[in-house]
């Protein structure tokens, strides 16, 4: 188990900067998930850690040692690619042993390691098959197996589940979590899927535009998002943002009073109230009333009902109601929310008040 330290890590292609100074420490045995929209730099960051992209500035340390100039093979890492990157002309056994053979490990030890990894991943019957004879899920296991046999200090996963169907994705997600629990290695996992991030991570790092927006445990990120971007990115359906209006003035500043928390904004500042769809309740008396929603569209998920609609001032709002609700487009629903579960963001999108419990 090894720690990683990224200090002011930068990446630029010519004059274009894509990673703007990332600072992050990953503890031994931690599973950290990099999450963010396309183009946020999460894969680039992972590839820089792997040694597949040169680091333009800053320092990368793995296990306390500077790694910037070391080739990928000397960093003690193993990587699982989105495409699996299995060698199509080699059997599963050969795929898994290729790296060990390259390192000139004795045959007996190679065989033993491959066998052990295959047992962990339950792919022993597949060892003599070629990748083209395997299903997507099986290929994924082989790709993970190829990483395991190398006994790396750090596992890197680059969107490993994105080529699997929904059911297999859930199943493999659970298996990766179990694998992490079993072998306890340090892992970095890149995904754009916030459910994967929430379910797998010890710690989530939310990236946007080559910067870390927030790093924290999944519930920290969910309960106390640092800004409007993080609040909107984590959670499904995404958080509602309601533009607020001024309640009273104190001199030249504006104060919002939310659940007893005073928020002072400079004159002219705008602010938004953030409330997650699952925190909205139907009924005027179940928290603070937010007004009446006109329903425009209803999604029945069986266990939940997702209701889309608008407030009288035309601001869109989405509410997730428990169970099956007989709501139809055109209905008027009085909504309320517990302000303790709401967030306020200032005009720059910073989270302005710690309202959540």
């Amino acid at each position, binding site marked *: 188990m090894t720690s990683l330290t990224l200090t002011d890590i930068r990446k630029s292609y010519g004059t274009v900067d894509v990673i703007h100074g990332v600072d992050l420490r990953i503890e031994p045995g931690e599973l950290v998930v990099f999450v963010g929209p396309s183009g946020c730099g999460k894969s680039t960051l992972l590839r820089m850690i*792997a*040694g*597949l992209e040169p680091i333009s500035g800053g320092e990368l340390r793995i296990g306390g040692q500077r790694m910037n100039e070391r*080739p*990928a*093979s*000397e960093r003690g*890492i*193993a*990587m699982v*690619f989105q*495409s699996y*990157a299995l*060698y*199509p*002309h080699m059997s599963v056994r050969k795929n898994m042993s*290729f*790296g060990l053979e*390259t*390192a000139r490990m004795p045959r007996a030890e190679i065989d033993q390691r491959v066998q052990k990894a295959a047992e962990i991943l339950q792919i022993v019957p597949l060892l003599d098959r070629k990748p*083209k004879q395997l299903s997507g899920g099986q290929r994924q296991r082989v790709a993970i197996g*190829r990483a395991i046999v*190398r006994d790396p200090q750090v596992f890197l996963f680059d969107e490993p589940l994105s080529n699997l169907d929904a059911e297999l994705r859930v199943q493999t997600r659970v298996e990766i979590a179990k694998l992490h629990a079993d072998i306890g290695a340090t892992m970095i996992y890149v995904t754009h899927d916030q459910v994967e991030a929430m379910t797998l991570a010890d710690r989530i790092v939310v990236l946007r535009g080559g910067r870390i927006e927030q790093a924290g445990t999944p519930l920290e990120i969910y309960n106390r998002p640092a800004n409007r971007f993080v609040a909107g990115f984590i959670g499904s359906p995404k958080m509602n943002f309601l533009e607020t209006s001024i309640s009273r003035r104190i001199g030249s500043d504006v104060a919002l009073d939310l659940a007893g928390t005073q928020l002072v904004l400079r004159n002219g500042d705008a602010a938004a109230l953030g409330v997650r769809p699952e925190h909205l309740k139907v009924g005027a008396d179940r928290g603070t009333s937010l007004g009446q929603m006109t329903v425009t569209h209803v999604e029945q998920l069986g266990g939940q009902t997702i209701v889309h609609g608008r407030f009288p001032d035309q601001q869109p709002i989405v509410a997730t109601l428990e169970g099956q609700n007989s709501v139809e487009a055109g209905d008027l629903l009085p909504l309320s929310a517990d302000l303790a579960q709401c967030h306020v963001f200032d005009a720059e999108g910073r989270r302005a008040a710690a309202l959540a419990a």
Partner: protein
Amino acid sequence: MSVNEAPLYRAPLWLRFKGQLAGYGFLSPWLIGLFALTLGPAVSSLYLSMTDYSLMSSPRWVGADNYVRIASDDPRFRAAMNVTFTYVLLSVPLKLIFALAIAVLLNKGLKGLNWFRAIFYLPSLIGGSVAIAVLWRQVFASDGIINQVLMAVFNYEGPSWIANPNTAIYTLVALAVWQFGSSMIIFLAGLRQIPTDMYEAASIDGASRARQFFKITLPLLTPVIFFNAVILTIDAFKAFTPAFVISDGSGGPIDSTLFYTLYLYQEAFTNFRFGYASALAWVLVAIIAGFTALAFLSAKYWVHYDD
């Protein structure tokens, strides 16, 4: 509808053909070419190969006599086989190696890649022409540029490469290898098909450039190597122009550049033994078919297809 149930109505053949007439009409330029210029002569040459047809007399049936003579009593046929096999077995592998090496270099993401690709491809465009063969004769002549360079650099007086029966064939091999362009383009396309993450995975696995080439590039390129090898082999067996021009149609010196096709040509158009030449042509077809069949049979042992 069950599988064995007959369709309710099926138009008679002539009616169905009538419906497709326009289609055949549009196909006709190609169809006429196929029947009149390719299939017709091919079938008639099969017939002629079993006659003693010469331009002077009408064909007389001789059965397998021509083939028997080819197999048992024709020293020039054996000379031609010797020359042709030497040419095929040297030029094809050399050309493959050359084309692959240059393609690998060009695949490194070089600046001005398109220019280099065009320049390297140029010999393939013009290489088969008479003009280049004439030029080649000059280059390898006793006072040609090769010998001038040898003289200037190594102070070595080279022979007349083309006039020397021991070296003449190698000048033709060199001419063939020089035309590596089209194979190179195909290799380049093949190299581009190999996903980069395959190399990234290999570099994380610690594989050196050389190991990556031999363990990943080469195996993944085997379908392209196979394709190129088959095409080049067939082309090499059919090679005619360079030998014809360089030896002035004689196949000399001392039959040392007597390509199979050149011998066939001499039999047909110098000696007017069309029957015998036809038999030679069909023997060449059999040899090429045999080689190609062998290649396909061997493919399952060394060619890796992805799907």
